C-alpha cells in the first residue's frame, strides 16, 4: 500500500480513536501496596453518606443508591466476595457519586481537524468512586473510580441504570487479580 493510500486509512483510525475516547468512560484505581487482596472473602456496606453530589437530582436518590448497591453486590459476588452482616466482613465498601460541570475546549478536535466548528463546550461529568477499607485496620486498601459525561443520563431511569451497570463492571474489573481468582 502506498503512503498516499495510507493517509486516509490513518485518518479513519485516528477519527475512530478520538470519537471512542470522547465517548469512553475514564476508569482508574489505586491499591495499597503490600495488602494481600486474596484474603478478602466478605464485605459489608459502610453507612451511606449524605453529602451533596453536586446535582440535586442525585442527592439522597434512593433509586440510584439501591441500583448501585445491587450492581456492586452482583459484581463482587462474581469475584467470590460475599456480603455479610455488619461487623463480620473483611472489607467495608464505601461509594460516592459526584457531578461537576466541565469545559471541553475541543483541543484535540481542533488539532486534528476533526470538527467543523471547533469551539469549546460544557458538559456534566459524573464520577463514581468505590472504596474498599480494611475492616480490621480501617485503612483504605483500594479505590476505583469511573468518570464520564452524563449529559442526558439522569433524565432517564433506564439510562441511569445502564450507566451504573457499565461503570461498576469496569471499576471492579480493576480489582487486583488475586481477589478475582480467590477460592471460597
Amino acid at each position, binding site marked *: 500500500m502506498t503512503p498516499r493510500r495510507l493517509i486516509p486509512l490513518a485518518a479513519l483510525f485516528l477519527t475512530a480513536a478520538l470519537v471512542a475516547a470522547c465517548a469512553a468512560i475514564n476508569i482508574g484505581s489505586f491499591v495499597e501496596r503490600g495488602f494481600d487482596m486474596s484474603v478478602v472473602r466478605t464485605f459489608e456496606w459502610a453507612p451511606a453518606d449524605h453529602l451533596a453530589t*453536586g446535582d*440535586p*437530582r442525585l442527592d439522597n436518590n434512593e*433509586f440510584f443508591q439501591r441500583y448501585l448497591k445491587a450492581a456492586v453486590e452482583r459484581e463482587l459476588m462474581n469475584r467470590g466476595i460475599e456480603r455479610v452482616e455488619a461487623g463480620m466482613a473483611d472489607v467495608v465498601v464505601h461509594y460516592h457519586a459526584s457531578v461537576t460541570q466541565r469545559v471541553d475546549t475541543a483541543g484535540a478536535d481542533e488539532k486534528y481537524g476533526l470538527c467543523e466548528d471547533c*469551539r469549546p463546550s460544557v458538559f456534566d461529568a459524573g464520577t463514581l468512586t468505590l472504596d474498599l477499607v480494611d475492616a480490621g485496620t480501617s485503612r483504605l486498601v483500594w479505590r476505583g473510580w469511573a468518570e464520564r459525561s452524563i449529559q442526558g443520563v439522569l433524565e432517564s*431511569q433506564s439510562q441511569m441504570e445502564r450507566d451504573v451497570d457499565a461503570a461498576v463492571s469496569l471499576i471492579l474489573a480493576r480489582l487486583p487479580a488475586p481477589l478475582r481468582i480467590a477460592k471460597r
Partner: protein
Amino acid sequence: MRRLACVCLVAAAVTAAGCATTMNVSSYVERGTDFTQFRTYDWGPADALPTGDPRLDDDPFFLDHFEGAIETAMAGKGYRLAERGMPDLLIHYHAAITPRIDINRLDSERGYCYDGDCRVRTIESETGTLVIDVVDSRTNKLIWRGWAQHGVVDILNNRDRMETRIDQAVARMLEELPSAQLGAN
C-alpha cells in the same frame, strides 16, 4: 453594521427567552409499585441539604406556595392530605439553585453568533431544581421522585413569576406520578 446590531439584539432576546422557557422535567419510580393502594399523604421531615442560595433558605413565601401547589396537584391525582392517623405516603421536597456556565450554547443550537468574528462567549446562569419525593410510610422506602429544572434568573426577584413557575413545575412533575386510583388522570 446595522444588520449586525439587529442580529445581536435578536440573539439577546432569544437568549433571555431561551433561559426562561426551557423546563426539564423527569421522574423515577419504584417499578412494580401498586399506587392504587395509597390514598392519603402527609409532609415528611425536611432534609438537611442546603438550597445553595440564601434567598431561598427558609423563605416562607416560597415554601407555602410550593406546598400549596403540591397539595393541589396531589388532589388532582386522587390523594388527600391525611387528617388523622398514619398516612399512606410521606412527601419530602427540596429546592436547590446551582450555578452553571454555558459556552456558545445558542450559537451551536441556533447557528448564529453574537459578534462578527464569532468569538467564544461564556454565559453564567443559575439553574433551580425542585425535587419531590414520595415515600411509602409503612416501609419508609422512596417509591417515586420527580424533579423540574429551570433557569431562575428572572424569577427570584419577582414573586408573581415565581408563583407561576412553581405551579408549572409542580403540575408537570406530578403529571408523571401514578394516580391513587385507576382512571383518576
